[in-house]
């Protein structure tokens, strides 16, 4: 039958159908190749840097065997075990997050406060935090809270201005106390307040008072112990109240209240224990480890121009953190404010609308301006016009702030635009004013997106080199910055400078090791952002 034969032919497919399919296959292969080119080159690059940094070939076989036995096997076994049981895996992740986070936050706080002078930091923290705390406590008892929000903001600013104005009078008074007492004010008191709030919300006020007393007594005991042992008590005090207290609180809470997953909190301790065991065996057997350039002395020493194994990048590390920290304070409020105005306030029509469109086009273009040009702007503005001096923290922070401004504005606008209009309508329909709609609905909903944008901007800023060269940030300093107007060094500049050092140990050891430090710093910031965003998304959408 003719018609039946034709339909069978049609089902078999003709040459052009096969050709189309072949084209599709080739296209897919080309896409896979494109993906692999990028990823493989990055992996090779990172492998190369890591190889130069850690020098894995210099270690003996025994060294690897020791660590495979003590570190890799138990950690991998525990991780595999935890993966099979969701509650244990969750407790494990929680324990890692709190231990990593608490250690990171308290160390960074200590490093920054130590560089900027703990007495100054204490002064500004007290004057910035006590007025809003008092206003908040007062507002909790009064029915009318209309003015609480603005009062908190204004009182913080007034407090900081007051501290700056009365600095000459107050600084000697604060200077009387021991340095570790200043750290009690900077770290222990805020931690105590957070613990008190959390405990009183979950249990009772009496328990909260007890918990705070425990924290204070513990801190005091640590300080006294350190004094007796003859150690400067500042770092122990910070580590106890900033890390041990929150870790103890979260781990203890998990062990007590989540019986199914409580074994999971052992995860980080397994890791720490196996590293310690490995180090102990290594020390007692005396095997040859790798001659890594990424050592504690690299992180903690100051720069040394002649000996690569004594050179350290502590001032550069602190400089990068301080510069990026001040930059965040300067740039993020401005950028997010601009984004909110452009997205939520400006009308679409009329001369304002046209002006806004013009602004938006220009902001998108500014995001693509080469960073060297921003360096010139910073040089002209901060050194030549405002006379801030060469390569000071505030000039570097300001220049990098200008650089990331358009990036943050554009990403924050995207985030605000993605908030569904129906939510705004709902809030307006309830009789919310525009400000209330923004504060209670739009900004909380856009917050994860805004956070992602700011973190990307931070990562860009911390690695930026060219503008710092132009505003003449020192490539090599031997001390950390001690204020807004002191000279600072930054990690990327040190990489740039060490690259042309005559000693190959610098070029092929210190440079990749510093790059690894910079990458780890960036990675930690990104991880923090992702964790915060996921946490926030889960809180609002489950």
């Amino acid at each position, binding site marked *: 039958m003719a018609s039946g034969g034709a339909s069978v032919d049609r089902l078999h497919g003709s040459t052009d159908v096969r050709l189309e399919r072949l084209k599709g296959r080739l296209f897919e292969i080309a896409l896979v190749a494109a993906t692999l080119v990028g990823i493989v080159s990055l992996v090779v690059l990172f492998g190369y840097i890591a190889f130069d940094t850690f020098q894995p070939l210099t270690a003996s076989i025994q060294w690897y065997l020791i660590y495979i036995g003590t570190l890799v096997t138990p950690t991998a076994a525990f991780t595999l075990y935890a993966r099979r049981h969701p509650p244990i895996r969750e407790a494990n992740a929680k324990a890692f997050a709190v231990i990593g986070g608490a250690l990171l936050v308290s160390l960074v706080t200590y490093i920054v406060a130590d560089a900027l002078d703990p007495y100054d930091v204490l002064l500004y923290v007290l004057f910035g935090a006590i007025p809003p705390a008092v206003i908040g406590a007062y507002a909790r008892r009064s029915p009318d*809270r209309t003015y609480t929000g603005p009062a908190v903001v204004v009182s913080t600013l007034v407090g900081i201005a007051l501290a700056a104005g009365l600095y000459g009078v107050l600084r000697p008074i604060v200077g009387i106390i021991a340095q570790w007492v200043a750290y009690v004010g900077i770290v222990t008191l805020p931690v105590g307040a957070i613990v008190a709030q959390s405990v009183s919300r979950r249990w009772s006020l009496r328990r909260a008072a007890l918990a705070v007393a425990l924290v204070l007594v513990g801190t005091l005991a640590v300080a006294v112990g350190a004094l007796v042992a003859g150690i400067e008590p500042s770092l122990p005090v910070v580590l106890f109240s900033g890390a041990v207290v929150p870790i103890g609180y979260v781990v203890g809470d998990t062990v007590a209240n989540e019986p199914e997953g409580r074994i999971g909190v052992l995860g980080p301790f397994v890791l720490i224990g196996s590293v310690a065991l490995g180090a102990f065996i290594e020390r007692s057997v005396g095997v040859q480890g790798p001659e890594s350039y990424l050592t504690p002395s690299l992180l903690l020493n100051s720069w040394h121009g002649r000996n690569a194994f004594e050179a350290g990048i502590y001032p550069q590390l602190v400089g990068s953190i301080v510069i990026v920290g001040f930059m965040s304070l300067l740039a993020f409020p401005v950028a997010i404010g601009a984004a909110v105005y452009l997205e939520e306030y400006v009308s679409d029509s009329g001369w304002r609308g046209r002006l806004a469109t013009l602004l938006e086009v220009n902001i998108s273009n500014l995001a693509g301006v080469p960073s060297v040009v921003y360096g010139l702007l910073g040089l002209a503005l901060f050194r030549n016009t405002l006379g801030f001096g060469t390569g000071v923290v505030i000039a570097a922070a300001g220049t990098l702030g200008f650089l990331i401004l358009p990036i943050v504005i554009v990403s924050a606008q995207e985030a605000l635009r993605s908030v569904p209009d129906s939510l705004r309508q709902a809030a307006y329909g*309830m009789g*919310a*004013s525009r400000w209330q709609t923004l504060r*209670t*609905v739009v900004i909380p*909903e856009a917050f994860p997106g805004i956070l992602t944008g700011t973190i990307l901007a931070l990562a860009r800023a911390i690695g930026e080199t060219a503008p710092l060269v132009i505003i003449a940030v020192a490539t090599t300093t031997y001390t950390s910055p001690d204020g807004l107007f002191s000279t600072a060094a930054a990690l990327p500049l040190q990489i740039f400078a060490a690259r042309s050092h005559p000693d190959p140990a610098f070029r092929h050891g210190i440079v990749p090791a510093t790059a690894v430090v910079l990458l780890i710093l960036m990675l930690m910031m990104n991880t923090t952002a992702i964790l915060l965003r996921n946490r926030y998304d889960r809180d*609002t*959408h489950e």
Partner: protein
Amino acid sequence: MSEHERTQTQPSTVDAESTVGEDEQSTGARTVIEARDVSVYYGQEQALQDVDLEIPRRQVTAIIGPSGCGKSTFLRCINRMNDLVDAARVDGRLRFDGTDVYGPEVDPVALRRRVGMVFQHPNPFPKSIYDNVAYGLRIHGRTDELDERVERALQRAALFEEVSDQLEKSALALSGGQQQRLCIARCLAVDPEIILMDEPASALDPVATSKIEDLIESLAEEYTVIIVTHNMQQAARISDQTAVFLTGGELAEYDDTDTIFEDPDSQRVEDYITGKFG
């Protein structure tokens, strides 16, 4: 607009009960919303033409008509949601309890606290059920007896039994019908006088729709409900008055729901009701 036409657009209940006629004084107690020559323009385009109608207190008034006839536009005039559209312009006079809604001294934010609104698609905030209902109370600074007010609002919206043990869960975890009743509860929590509903059941399945309809009927004991719907059976089932808008943004007829559906004056309305067009 001539006197004759104006008479025609008066609801007959008002006619029957107020002996004086269709003057403003007579309508005071019964009428809560009074529109006179209301026209709305979006840029050059006219969305509403000289609408005249009076909406009685504590009854359900349905607004029906084909798509694009301006029924939602009229609804959004009442709580000035059209203010949010840059190009929108409103002419004529619209009175709420005798006060001109578009008068210079009227704050739209204050107005919307007395005229609540429920939208076509359920739009709960991405917060907990409790926080959704408490939202209006919190932004208005009425945080005393919050728990009781939230519970009462949920009960009046016939949702409390279903969610009483999960008030801290996200509102987005509820089903579509529950979300819409939550939106109604959110609106009721602040004790508005009028509730505007813009096709509140059009995104819901038949079971959820019938729950919403039951709810609307019970709400009319305490509130004035104005509901836009394109479902004529729904209008016939739940409303006391019906306004029919036809293409071009004109009000074709406004009367008792029974009269509209059984014996409408105009041929066009009859054609629309019986499904000959629209």
